[in-house]
């Protein structure tokens, strides 16, 4: 099959099998996503991030943990250390490269835990209604009433410092907004004709929630998660900065800023380089989120 006919096959209005229909829908979504330049930039940055994390040992010029006290606080462009060295003489570029693994790890874990918990609570609450709705939403309110970082701090303080606990703490504080969104969507979906129609086929609540409501909530949640990713990275960095996240000598970006803080006036690059990395990745997630909203939001699609 040539390139041209593959494209036609994907863009057909008359799919011939389930798989064909699915692929065709995905391809059309991709086409409209590709039209959004900013979102593509975001996507490329994130692909680059994943590649960097995957090939960290091959591309980093130095071992991120090897100290060289004779060569500490080297400025940008020092021979062999493009981004300079930190207070213990470690290569900042290599530490950033290895740090991307930690960032991705945090992002992936939070992205798995928080939205799924929120989706579950929100859709059940919205669909079932009544006292269950009241109870679940009051619990959500309690979580929402605390400032996120303060609540995360409390959790980490209780669970002990460390990257896993930081992730757990962030997830615990991140799910309530997702529950709210999912509930609001469920309330509008619940009263629509196609839900009535499937009720008339004798479908039970579990089936309706999972097969009919989830697919419509997920897209707005994905958008929201990508837009929140920046905040999550910053929260993780914030915990790292406060010494409650990743522990030294781990090259977590927030912890690196924290270390660089002491030299910020004389040796600004030690804190600025990880700051720049956090900024870039946060921005990339935001751009991606904006693009995804255009593709996935059914309201904008028509």
């Amino acid at each position, binding site marked *: 099959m040539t390139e041209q006919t593959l494209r036609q096959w994907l863009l057909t209005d*008359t*799919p011939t099998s*389930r798989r064909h*229909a699915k692929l065709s829908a995905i391809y059309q979504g991709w086409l409209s996503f590709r039209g959004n330049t900013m979102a593509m930039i975001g996507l490329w940055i994130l692909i680059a991030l994943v590649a960097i994390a995957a090939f960290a040992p091959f591309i980093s010029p130095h071992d991120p943990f090897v100290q060289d006290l004779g060569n500490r606080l080297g400025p940008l462009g020092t021979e062999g250390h493009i981004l300079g060295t930190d207070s213990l003489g470690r290569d900042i570029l290599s530490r950033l490269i290895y740090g991307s693994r930690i960032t991705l790890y945090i992002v992936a874990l939070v992205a798995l835990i928080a939205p799924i918990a929120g989706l579950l609570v929100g859709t059940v609450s919205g669909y079932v209604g009544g006292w269950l709705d009241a109870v679940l939403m009051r619990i959500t309110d309690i979580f929402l009433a605390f400032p996120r970082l303060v609540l995360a701090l409390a959790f980490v303080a209780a669970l002990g410092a460390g990257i896993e606990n930081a992730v757990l703490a962030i997830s615990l504080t991140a799910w309530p907004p997702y529950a709210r969104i999912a509930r609001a969507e469920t309330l509008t979906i619940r009263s629509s*004709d*196609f839900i009535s129609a499937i009720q008339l*086929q*004798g479908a039970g609540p579990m089936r309706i929630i999972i097969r009919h409501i989830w697919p419509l909530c997920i897209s707005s949640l994905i958008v929201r998660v990508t837009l929140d990713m920046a905040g999550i990275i910053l929260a993780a960095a914030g915990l790292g900065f406060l010494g409650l996240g990743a522990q030294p000598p781990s090259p977590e970006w927030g912890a690196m800023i924290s270390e660089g803080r002491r030299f910020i006036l004389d040796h600004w690059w030690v804190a600025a380089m990880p700051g720049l990395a956090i900024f870039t990745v946060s921005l990339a997630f935001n751009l991606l989120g904006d693009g995804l909203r255009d593709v996935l939001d059914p309201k904008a699609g028509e």
Partner: protein
Amino acid sequence: MLEIGKLNVWFGSGIDRVDAVKGASFAVPKGESFGLVGESGSGKSTILRAITGLAPHWSGRITVDGTELGKSRPKAFYNTVQMVFQDPYASLHPRHSVDQVLGETLHLHGFKDIDARVVKLLDDVGLGQKFRFRYPHQLSGGQRQRVAIARALAPEPQLLLLDEPTSALDVSVQAEILNLLVDLRRDRGLTYLMVSHDLSVVGHMCERLAVMKDGAIVEVMAVDTLRRNAAEHPYSQSLLQASL
């Protein structure tokens, strides 16, 4: 087939209570097509929702095929009674293909030969196989309504509730859908209860009709009576005047 006795339906409670249907009674024998006519807010669609169990607060008597209905509907009820909704743009799940919609319906009713039945249903409503894997946004309004009709036919019901099935469609498409409904009724011996604000549509589709106003039935008559301009109630006459 269907008997409605002193049916009341209301929404809300206390001072917010709205009585949508007040003391409606009528009966539809097997094989007949019965129309409910009235203006918006007259409670005609609410009667359908009460029969299907989508309107939770009602009192009175609803008997389908000799069985009096309680507060909840047994699963077998949906093998007998199905409904086609007004707006084909709202009654199909936007992310489910035609195949998924019909397949899931058949699965829920415990059919085993789902593939063969999906193929047959699509043929029965005049869509054909090339529509099987399309999503609703790839279909026109008339095609969507055909899918909705196929879904309602899937469990092989005896009574079909039609809630303004063509009011969202263009007149030329309306003609196609009405013809399809006429054919299906003849071929399958279905009983129809059809709600419409359009007297000429009800006149075309039904043998008898009830005129509703403000939640109450003001007159039940044969369509022939309507045609002969022999409606008794002044409201029925004014409706007739407005639609000629």
